[in-house]
């Protein structure tokens, strides 16, 4: 259609201006994309958490360990199907900038309580039998090119010393939201080593995770677990995995809501950038639009032309921005190692950015359209920019 050609030619009448507008929108969309990706990554831990898992930790603080002896007691609580336990291992791989999460987990129960970490039979058997073995996430393996048999050296801090773990296998995340950046090592091996060096810290567990039976009431099971250890030196607090994650996130909440807020401020900025360009163009073309109307073009034609131009520029900016978002997120992820979670651009972010860009394209056209429609032909033809 001829009108499309005119829209296209009109859009690039001032090449530099249009280019700068597209670039401006692109950069803003890119910033929007990064912010949304980070905000989503914060939330994805909560979404990935399972509703049928409970976490039992020390009632006072997360840092205090719990006795290993609780394991058999918790297992007896009605409604508890399986129990596992783990410790935060900490330490450094290479240096501080190469951060990923490392947990010491019970090799016998961990993977059945966490079926979303999928590992092969062979790897599982080796993990159980080989004391100093470990399992790494697929994203982690990809980043550092870890393969089965490789030895990973960790400098301990919570557990001082130089630790060498041999990769028994690689786990695959079941869902996109499942964390694939963690390393799991054998709790029994860690405990044996601790017995030798720090006997006082042996048989201590960071926290317990229970999988509850189908139909069991999580609230009641939690209460019963905590009741077991009431008035003991190590009282517990049990909550659903989701609450546990949310509690952890609460501290970051202010930052998240600020980022949320800023990401939508960015949409406003995109709108101002585009509206400014569109208003300038429409003003310059006052006479042309009047001439087109005189020739017999209707208001509908003008609406189509102005809206088309606004949408074309906003979409080009949006596409540029979306393309720029990927390298930005990747480079951000590679130097900041965010929350141990794989930072990736989610489709919801793309959809939100795209919707925002379309919305902006329409909104920025409103004022110029109004102006073009309301200018009387006779006045428009007299108009001298």
């Amino acid at each position: 259609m001829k009108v499309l050609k005119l829209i296209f030619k009109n859009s690039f009448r001032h090449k530099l201006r249009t280019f700068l507008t597209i670039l401006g929108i692109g950069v803003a969309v890119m910033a929007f994309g990064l912010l949304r990706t980070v905000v989503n990554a914060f939330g994805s831990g909560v979404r990935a958490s399972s509703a049928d898992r409970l976490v039992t930790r020390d009632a006072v603080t997360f840092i205090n360990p719990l006795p290993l002896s609780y394991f058999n007691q918790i297992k007896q609580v009605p409604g508890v199907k399986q129990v596992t336990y783990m410790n935060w291992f900490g330490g450094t791989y290479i240096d501080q900038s190469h951060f990923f999460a490392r947990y010491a987990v019970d090799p016998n129960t961990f993977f059945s309580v966490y079926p979303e970490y999928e590992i092969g039979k062979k790897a599982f058997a080796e993990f159980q039998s080989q004391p100093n073995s470990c399992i790494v996430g697929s994203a982690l393996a990809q980043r550092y090119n870890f393969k089965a048999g490789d030895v990973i050296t960790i400098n301990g801090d919570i557990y001082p010393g130089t630790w060498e773990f041999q990769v028994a296998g690689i786990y695959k995340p079941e869902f996109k939201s499942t964390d694939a950046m963690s390393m799991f090592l054998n709790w029994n091996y860690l405990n044996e080593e601790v017995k030798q060096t720090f006997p006082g810290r042996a048989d201590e567990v960071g926290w317990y995770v229970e999988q509850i039976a189908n139909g069991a009431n999580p609230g009641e099971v939690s209460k019963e677990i905590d009741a077991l250890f009431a008035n003991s030196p190590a009282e517990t607090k049990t909550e659903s995995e989701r609450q546990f994650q949310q509690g952890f996130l609460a501290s970051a909440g202010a930052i998240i809501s600020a980022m949320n807020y800023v990401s939508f401020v960015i949409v406003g900025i995109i709108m101002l950038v585009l509206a400014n360009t569109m208003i300038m163009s429409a003003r310059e073309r006052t006479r042309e639009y009047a001439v087109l109307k005189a020739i017999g073009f209707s208001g509908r034609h003008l609406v189509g032309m102005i809206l088309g131009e606004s949408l074309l520029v906003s979409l080009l900016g949006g596409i540029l921005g979306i393309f720029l978002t990927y390298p930005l997120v990747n480079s951000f992820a590679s130097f900041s190692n965010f929350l141990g979670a794989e930072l990736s651009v989610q489709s919801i972010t793309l959809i939100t950015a795209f919707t925002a860009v379309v919305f902006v394209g329409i909104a920025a056209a409103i004022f110029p359209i109004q102006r073009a429609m309301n200018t009387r032909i006779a006045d428009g033809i007299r108009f001298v920019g």
Partner: protein
Amino acid sequence: MANLIEIKEVSKIYRRDSIETPVLTGINLSVGNGEFLALMGPSGSGKTTLLNLIAGIDKPTGGEIIVGGTDIARLSESALAKWRSSNIGFIFQFYNLIPVLTAYENVELPLLLTKLSKQERKQHVEAALNIVGLAERMNYYPKQLSGGQEQRVAIARAIVTDPLILIADEPTGDLDKNSAEEIMTLMQRLNSEFKKTIVLVTHDAHTASRAKTLRHLEKGDLLPADGQAA
């Protein structure tokens, strides 16, 4: 012969806020089919205003404007737009071509509103450009043309739909003497050879002398027809 344009007791008052500017007061004017009328008058006398009323891009405050039997003052905006596209060809002082379109595309613009096929449009556009003598420049952009050539493209755009009436507001006002001569020769030819009825506004007596009829507008009033009337 019935008059093509019949203007009866037309008045125009511009209103802005509470300020009223009476521009035309009780104008009566008849323009026959095939006429070539030049309107002269001092700046601000209302020439453009009158021309706009005849062309149907502005509405009178009072009176009737009957063109080809239609009282155009009573048409709705959209009906008027349709009416203009088939009855009126516009020629402006500043050509008003679309700078991003070639001469060909500019001339083609009014045809985009018709049902003509691409091939038919091509024939019409080439015929119009031939009449104004610019067929070989059809792929030039306005800024690659001289002022006189731009105005000829604008004239081709005005005649491409084969309208009854050409409306020209100071078509030579921005041109040098030679180009102005060429444009007026072209206008005369459109009148005599292609039977276009032309209403033209000009400041320039020499330009006006190329028309068949000359009328003077003074302070919103049309002076009685002078000796040049056809």
